[in-house]
């Protein structure tokens, strides 16, 4: 049995925070980091608020370590005070009129003085805040505020830790410091940690499991690898930042050679065999940009799959790579709407970019390796 089991529904009526919005979430978590990923307004924070008890769902059940926090059928609603959950707010919500030490002491006011003192020292030490114990929150840097907020949430030894977009507004270095802090927490506290983000990289860096949110529902859960390599549908793929999402019809199916051929409006694509599909079915598929290989047009090798003649239309540099927008030949600049693969995106390392000598050449071949073509088993909405 998972440490946290959450199955909740809530409808937001007119005049509430999110009118017409429907939250319907089913989530199971064990010790480790579960990243709740999705666009803003998809219901991630509402999930945290329901778990913490700030929000009463209309129906469902929340179990934490076999304790019932909420159950609509037996009308159990445990107040937030008794749930034993640590919450790190987006703005940290440190009490501005108390010192760091007083902030930490607030949660353990009923502990004997000696024990309280010891635990505060321990937390200050663990989060590198000993020198700042007597400071007010307004005199702390962003990273220090964040650490103080996490320390305050952990000092009561919660059974679940919730983090709502904790790195928002922090610079690159502080983000990476934070990732190290969260990994340490995962090591030393064997509790489920739920972290809300809409940053794909963060999800990948931190998550043991990712839950992808869309319009109030979790549409897919899995390890980061599972989710990124096998998005459930086109919408999830796009949420994850995969731009090469195309539609086509099944033209050939060959289970013997584990092959299927999908005819798009511009070119045929060979992919892995699709069980349970028929010829003529309309399907969607995707390939993430770093798996698209680029080679000189002359080096066209017939033996390889999915060789597509292209020309480079745009180069977008990123810190470690170059993203290239490629136009498929024979598709004279038509629109890129509704899954028509007139444009493919690839991402290559700077070293490879320099080796190819891109600027000098016009005609190229893009290769979409069959193994990385992911065909959605589910109809995209």
């Amino acid at each position: 049995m998972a440490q946290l089991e959450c199955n909740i529904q809530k409808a937001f009526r007119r005049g509430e925070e999110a009118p017409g919005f429907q939250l319907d979430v089913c989530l199971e978590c064990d010790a480790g980091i579960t990243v709740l990923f999705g666009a803003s307004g998809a219901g991630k924070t509402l999930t945290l608020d329901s778990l913490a008890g700030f929000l009463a769902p209309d129906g469902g059940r929340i179990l934490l370590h076999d304790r019932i926090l909420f159950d609509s059928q037996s009308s159990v609603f445990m107040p937030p005070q008794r749930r034993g959950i640590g919450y790190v707010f987006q703005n940290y919500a440190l009490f501005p009129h108390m010192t760091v030490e007083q902030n930490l002491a607030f949660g353990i006011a009923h502990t004997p003085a000696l024990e309280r003192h010891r635990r505060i020292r321990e937390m200050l030490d663990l989060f590198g805040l000993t020198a700042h114990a007597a400071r007010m929150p307004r005199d702390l840097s962003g990273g220090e505020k964040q650490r103080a907020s996490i320390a305050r949430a952990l000092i009561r030894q919660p059974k679940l830790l919730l983090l709502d977009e904790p790195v928002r507004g922090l610079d690159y270095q502080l983000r990476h410091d934070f990732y190290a802090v969260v990994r340490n927490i995962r090591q030393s506290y064997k509790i489920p940690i739920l972290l809300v983000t809409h940053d794909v990289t963060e999800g990948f860096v931190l998550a043991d499991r990712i839950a992808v949110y869309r319009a109030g529902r979790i549409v897919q859960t899995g390890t980061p690898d599972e989710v990124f390599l096998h998005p459930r549908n086109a919408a999830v793929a796009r949420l994850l930042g995969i731009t090469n999402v195309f539609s086509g019809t099944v033209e050939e199916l060959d289970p013997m050679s584990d092959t299927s051929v999908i005819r798009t409006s511009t070119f045929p694509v060979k992919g892995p065999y699709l069980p349970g599909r028929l010829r003529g079915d309309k399907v969607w598929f995707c390939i993430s940009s770093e798996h698209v290989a680029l080679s000189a047009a002359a080096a066209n090798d017939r033996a390889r799959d999915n060789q597509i003649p292209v020309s480079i239309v745009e180069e977008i540099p990123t810190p470690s790579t170059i993203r290239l927008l490629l136009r498929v030949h024979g598709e004279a600049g038509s629109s890129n709407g509704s899954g028509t693969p007139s444009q493919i995106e690839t991402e290559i390392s700077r070293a490879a970019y320099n080796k190819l000598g891109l600027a000098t050449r016009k005609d190229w071949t893009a290769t979409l390796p069959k193994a990385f073509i992911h065909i959605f088993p589910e109809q995209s909405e």
Partner: protein
Amino acid sequence: MLRQIDWFPLWLSLKVAVIATAISLAGGLLLAYVLARRRFRGRNILDAVVTLPVVLPPTVLGYYLLVLLGRSTPLGRAFEAVFGFPLVFTWQAAVVAATIHSVPLLVKSARAAFESVDRNMENAARTLGASEWRIFFRVTLPLARRSIMAATIFAFARALGDFGVTIMIAGNIPGKTQTMAVAIYDAVESGNTLLANAMVLVISAVAIAILYGMNRLEGDRLF
């Protein structure tokens, strides 16, 4: 010259205003917090009832109170049974008048002050195990402190200056229920300009001091 002036109305006014402000503060803060943070049936009606004294003419309000608290009414009788004297036309009635006159302002400003407190602060306190009372006294109230102090001073000024409600339910009994505002009216009516001038000056000085104090609390100084 000052010897000739009877300072009783000033002391009575101050006494009445201090007590009325204390009552307004105790009841008003709670009411304001409930209106700011709780969602319940009849919240709008409660809000309207609290605001009513601001819109009603003071004499109308005084008349309602007279009808409600007079010697023959249940409330009036209850008061008399408990305290041994009738409420109306005593200085205690002036306290009731001043309270009713000042409480809506206090509730309005305190409510705005509570609403401006980041809810995450209160929610954070909840996850840290704090009871609702502890949250109110340790988190919400301290964070709204400045605005509430300003609101309290404002309520005190209102309590000090009430005329209409006071004269309706406390009357104008010199040495007993005659507050400053009533005494000034009385002095002008009877042509006692010296007395009227002295009292007007004192009240004006108090009012300016209050204004100064409020501006200090709001952050920018008047002087």
